[in-house]
């Protein structure tokens, strides 16, 4: 078949998930769990097939095409149409989103079955898959957009799905409202970022007169020389959008709370795909960023600082998902730092491998959590006292859930960057890029990499090694096949993912080069690779030394607590960032809202309205005495009125 025809298949990547969600919306509840799950997985899976076809077609004509789909907004010279962009960058994202997405959908069939049973609302099952398919469709709109406006549509769409899915069990959580609050927090934090992206888009339209990628990027050098400030503002406001969606400093605070959502959601949205949208945006706009070194430096430092900052917090968390959440923020920091340095390929490479191994870790963590829940159930009915996510309640799980243990081990070692797993190659590329001219960033990232290895080592030891610290952990049992199979596939991908940009072969670099133009890559530096490997081993070794040699006993404090003292307290309390935000922004805002509500609205505006009414009532009461029922008094009043009018007319 001709490649042109193949390219015209691209709308299917969006519309297959939409079809899936419509079917589930109409029929999902009637035909039950298996039907809903299979439909949704099939829709995403077919979307993946289409992505593969597109990738194969791109091999023939790698420069990519734009496939016009529908007219949208046309005002004067401004034209924003729904056009699909098929090039190596967008198709790479499509492959990741639909590929990892399909595996997570399949996993969800098993996971949500248990979750729904525990929470006792079967109707939610199909709703979950409706949201998931909606997410895939939105994400596809985002990555396949040909202009900033369509990208923004997808950007908002995934934000909505994130909100819906974080608050999926909206009636659960702390005080019965915790999950809803977490969803709200994510939505509002993202709104701040989206405001930045919107302003960036306005500025782009103001300066370029268009929002199309091709037009904007082609005109970028001219604008850069004419209005350097404009381009700086555009890139910095865009960075604000990135910090919101990709959970970077200072807007990352929503992501740890987003763990309130079901675990597959954490894996799909808050680890593998949505949060990488910011990295994708910077990569896509690299033509703009390379023209503004100041913005590049800012992006790089935001990423590096986030990488280290989040890693320190991850060290001192006890919730199995919270550790992974901070780990995700930290890894996203690596990617953002990479694209900030101009090492776009390295950033995208890490995005892909991270999607594999972090999805794996989250899904495996979900398997652990449900194993704990089953264990607790077996021991003494369903015990609501025990927190199945607290690592202090686990221990020794490698014997109870061997499959989960092995895949977790693979994911953890990949995250820590052991050769020759995927994470090693991608992280090494970022470090290599940093070592060339960005020494300070290199040091920060190496430190973050060390902490990464340490906290994931700590987590693995606490969860799987030693002795069971609760009876629930002792009675935990392995998850069903539908849950473990995607885990095994993802584990294989985590092992082999490094192949796509193996030093020497550099497939990914050549592949993305068609879209990003000439890319500068640091290549493979033995010194850097050795350092990163050493650091990973050091981190893992230290974790084993502290947590593994003398296994944690029940209710004992963390061994680091006494060693680090105040530092531990800071890390354990997430450096009080939430509290600081509450103090700096939330409380003044609430006080202001209270003031306007109580004083201005209730006291001023409402009082004025009431006053008018009360005045009218009082006047009416007084006037009512005039109507006394005596006709003759009416006549007298008429006479007086007449006299008054006549007097007025005569004397005037």
């Amino acid at each position: 078949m001709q490649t042109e025809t193949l390219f015209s298949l691209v709308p299917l990547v969006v519309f297959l998930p939409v079809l899936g969600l419509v079917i589930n919306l109409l029929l999902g509840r009637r035909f039950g769990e298996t039907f809903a799950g299979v439909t949704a997985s099939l829709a995403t899976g077919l979307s993946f097939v289409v992505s593969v076809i597109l990738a194969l077609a791109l091999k023939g004509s790698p420069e990519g095409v734009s496939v016009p789909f529908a007219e949208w907004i046309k005002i004067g010279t401004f034209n924003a149409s729904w056009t699909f962009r098929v090039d190596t960058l967008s198709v790479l994202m499509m492959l990741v989103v639909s590929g990892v997405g399909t595996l997570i959908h399949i996993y969800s069939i098993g996971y949500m079955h248990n979750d729904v049973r525990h929470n006792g609302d079967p109707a939610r099952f199909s709703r979950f898959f409706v949201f998931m398919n909606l997410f895939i469709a939105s994400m596809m709109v985002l990555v396949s957009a040909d202009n900033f406006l369509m990208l923004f549509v997808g950007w908002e769409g995934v934000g909505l799905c994130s909100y819906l899915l974080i608050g999926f069990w909206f009636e659960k959580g702390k005080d019965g409202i915790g999950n809803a609050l977490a969803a709200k927090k994510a939505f509002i934090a993202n709104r701040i970022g989206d405001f930045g992206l919107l302003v960036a888009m306005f500025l782009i339209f103001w300066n370029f007169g268009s929002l199309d990628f091709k037009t904007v990027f082609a005109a970028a050098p001219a604008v850069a020389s004419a209005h350097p400030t404009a381009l700086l503002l555009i890139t910095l406001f865009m960075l604000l959008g990135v910090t919101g969606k990709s959970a970077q400093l200072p807007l990352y605070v929503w992501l740890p709370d987003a763990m309130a959502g079901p675990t597959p959601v954490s894996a799909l949205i808050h680890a593998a795909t949505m949060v990488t949208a910011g990295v994708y945006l910077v990569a896509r706009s690299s033509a703009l960023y390379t023209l503004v070194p100041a913005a590049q430096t800012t992006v790089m430092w935001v990423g590096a600082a986030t990488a280290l900052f989040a890693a320190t917090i991850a060290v001192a968390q006890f919730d199995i998902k919270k550790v992974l959440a901070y780990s995700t923020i930290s890894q996203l920091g690596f990617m953002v730092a990479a694209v900030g340095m101009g090492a776009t390929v390295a950033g995208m490479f890490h995005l892909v491998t991270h999607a594999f191994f972090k999805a794996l870790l989250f899904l495996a963590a979900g398997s652990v959590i449900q194993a704990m829940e089953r264990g607790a159930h077996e021991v003494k009915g369903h015990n609501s006292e025990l927190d199945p996510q607290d690592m202090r309640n686990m221990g020794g799980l490698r014997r109870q859930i061997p499959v989960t243990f092995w895949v977790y081990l693979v994911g953890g070692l990949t995250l820590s960057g052991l050769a020759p797993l995927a994470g090693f190659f991608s992280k090494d590329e970022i470090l290599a890029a940093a070592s060339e001219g960005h020494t300070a960033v290199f040091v920060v990232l190496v430190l973050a990499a060390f902490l990464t290895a340490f906290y994931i080592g700590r987590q693995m030891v606490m969860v799987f090694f030693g002795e069971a610290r609760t009876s629930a952990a002792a009675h935990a049992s392995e998850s069903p096949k539908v849950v473990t199979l995607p885990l095994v596939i993802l584990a294989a991908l985590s092992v082999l993912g490094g192949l796509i940009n193996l030093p020497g072969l550099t497939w990914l670099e050549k592949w993305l080069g068609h879209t990003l133009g000439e890319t500068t890559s640091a290549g493979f530096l033995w010194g850097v690779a050795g350092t990163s490997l050493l650091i990973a081993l050091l981190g893992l070794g230290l974790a084993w030394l502290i947590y593994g040699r003398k296994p944690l006993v029940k209710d004992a404090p963390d061994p680091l607590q006494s060693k680090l003292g105040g530092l531990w307290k800071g890390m354990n309390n997430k450096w009080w960032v939430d509290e600081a935000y509450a103090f700096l922004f939330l409380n003044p805002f609430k006080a202001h809202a209270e003031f306007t509500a109580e004083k201005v609205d209730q006291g001023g505006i409402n009082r004025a309205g009431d006053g008018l009414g009360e005045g009218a009532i009082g006047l009416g009461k007084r006037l009512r005495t005039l109507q006394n029922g005596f006709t003759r008094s009416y006549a007298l009043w008429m006479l007086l009125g007449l006299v008054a009018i006549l007097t007025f007319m005569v004397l005037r």
Partner: protein
Amino acid sequence: MIPMIYYLGLAVVLFGLGLVGVLLRRNALVIFMSLELMFNAANLVFVSFSNYYGLLDGQALVIFVMVAAAAEVAVGLALMVMIFRTKGSIDIDQMSKLKE
């Protein structure tokens, strides 16, 4: 010729008597009579000025006023009869049902 001021003075006295009657008397029939007194005071002014200026408009208007007054009295008396039948009195102060 009798000066104009006498006509007008008489008219004022008549109008005043009528007004006082309307305001002070409680018997509806007497009020009607007082009203007629006021009408006729006005009529007197009309014809006086008509005569004074030598124009016929005033005379014509008086005829109209008389017709209207006659019609009004017909309606009014009918009302009186009905009120007397229901209430047994034509005391105007008793007619305060609409106040409630």
